[in-house]
């Protein structure tokens, strides 16, 4: 994400059209770090809590006006940085603005007021959120299997058992693959995406057939019944096998039948071996 941050060195955010020469006093954050910090909030309540904490205030004593202004400054900064702004932030901004406007306008008659004081609602929500935020931190501090605790599982020297061994769910297997690929960031590799499973499977199948006799006529590797696609899959598989030094394509003389054989490291073939490796 860093590369998207385009801060021409001392370019400060603009808030409500005015260039911010100075970031808000409570905001001791270098501008280029702002984006990272803003993205770290878990939502508008989290951001509000952060603003309150920065001033060392009890939630119960929030000065709504001040907090509203700071919140709006953050929202503006987020928009300036083109951080995708979730609707929740805007909703909270609207709520704060409403609270502020109600405070500025004298209430004509308290009896008429039917809704709750919106500040009470805000305070409740903040308090409630804070409890669970704290609870989630407590939870994270508990010793956890996989991070702090390693259950012991000692392999038995021998097991007397005549029932089938564990059978993983296919989904488990797929999730495992997904995770390892995500970790290896291989999903971005075009090479893998160009190789559909059918080619990889065909590669195994061809290698397997070759294991019996060591070599097969090229033409025997194609089954016309498979149609055009089948022929293409076989052909790509053969090329890939050869490229990966698993097989060799051999023709003893011009126009002689082409043979596919298991690659062998033979001295008299050293030359072609090198060519394959260079690929």
């Amino acid at each position: 994400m860093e590369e998207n941050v385009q801060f021409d060195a001392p370019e400060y955010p603009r808030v409500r059209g005015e260039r911010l020469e100075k970031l808000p006093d409570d905001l001791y954050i270098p501008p280029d770090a702002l984006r990272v910090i803003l993205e770290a909030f878990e939502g508008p309540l989290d951001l509000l809590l952060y603003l309150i904490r920065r001033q060392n205030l009890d939630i119960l004593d929030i000065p709504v006006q001040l907090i509203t202004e700071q919140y709006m400054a953050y929202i503006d900064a987020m928009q300036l940085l083109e951080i995708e702004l979730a609707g929740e932030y805007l909703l909270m901004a609207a709520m704060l603005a409403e609270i502020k406007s109600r405070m500025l306008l004298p209430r004509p008659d308290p009896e008429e007021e039917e809704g709750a004081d919106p500040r009470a609602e805000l305070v409740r929500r903040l308090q409630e959120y804070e409890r669970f935020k704290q609870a989630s931190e407590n939870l994270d501090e508990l010793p956890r299997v996989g991070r702090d605790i390693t259950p012991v599982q000692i392999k038995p020297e021998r097991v007397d058992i005549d029932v089938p061994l564990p059978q993983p769910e296919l989904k488990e297997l797929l999730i495992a693959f997904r995770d390892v690929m995500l970790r290896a960031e291989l999903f971005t590799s075009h090479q893998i995406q160009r190789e559909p499973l059918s080619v990889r499977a065909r590669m195994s199948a061809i290698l397997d057939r070759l294991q019996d006799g060591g070599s097969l006529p090229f033409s025997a590797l194609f089954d016309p019944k498979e149609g055009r696609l089948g022929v293409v899959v076989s052909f790509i598989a053969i090329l890939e096998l050869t490229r990966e030094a698993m097989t060799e394509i051999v023709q003893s003389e011009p126009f002689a039948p082409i043979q596919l054989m298991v690659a062998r490291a033979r001295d008299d073939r050293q030359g072609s071996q090198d060519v394959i490796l260079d690929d």
Partner: protein
Amino acid sequence: MTEQTINESVLRCVEALLMAADGPLSIDRIVGLLAESGAPDRKAVRVALDALTAESEGRAAALVEVAGGWRYQVRSDYAGLIGKLWEEKPPRLTRALLETLALIVYRQPISRGEIEQVRGVAVSSNIVKTLLEREWVRIVGYREVPGRPALFGTTRQFLDDFNLKSLEQLPTLPELKDLDQLDEAMARLRADSGEGAEPRPEATAEDDLGNADAPGDAPVEADEPPSDSLH
């Protein structure tokens, strides 16, 4: 080791089972497995477990009891060292996931909508899926309102993975500042802004938060765990 009733053979059988098992074993399960090996009863197994616990003191692996039963585990003192065995660091849990989990833990059974109300943001499907896949939470029922939202609760696997015997062992949910204090604060706020209305904090109960709030103020242990979660 000191009790004279310890049967060394039973002791070693229990140890072998616990060492080979890939998860915690309950006393009942151990009794069942040993049915043909001298058929010890629950009490004998209990005695063996106590002896093994004593024996494990000072060693790298401790015998501990969690919700699912007993297991040997390498003491957390060695977590850093053991981390070096694996190239990959265990993934950190994101704050979003932890907050969602905390809400399910302390407010179960809870719907996704209720989680969203408290957190103030949408709960992503991936978080719910991750929690379900890790088997830390499960759907314990549905709320009979339009849409029939699923209700989530924690599992025994959650307790096992967090090294707990029961939900009661969790740190208590941080207190909500009491309502009197809130009233006071609101009165102060009003005075500050020149308003002279009586505090009416309870009026908030009518909004959607009231829903999520009500059960939460009750002590955690009041939450009846899902049927197979405990013991």
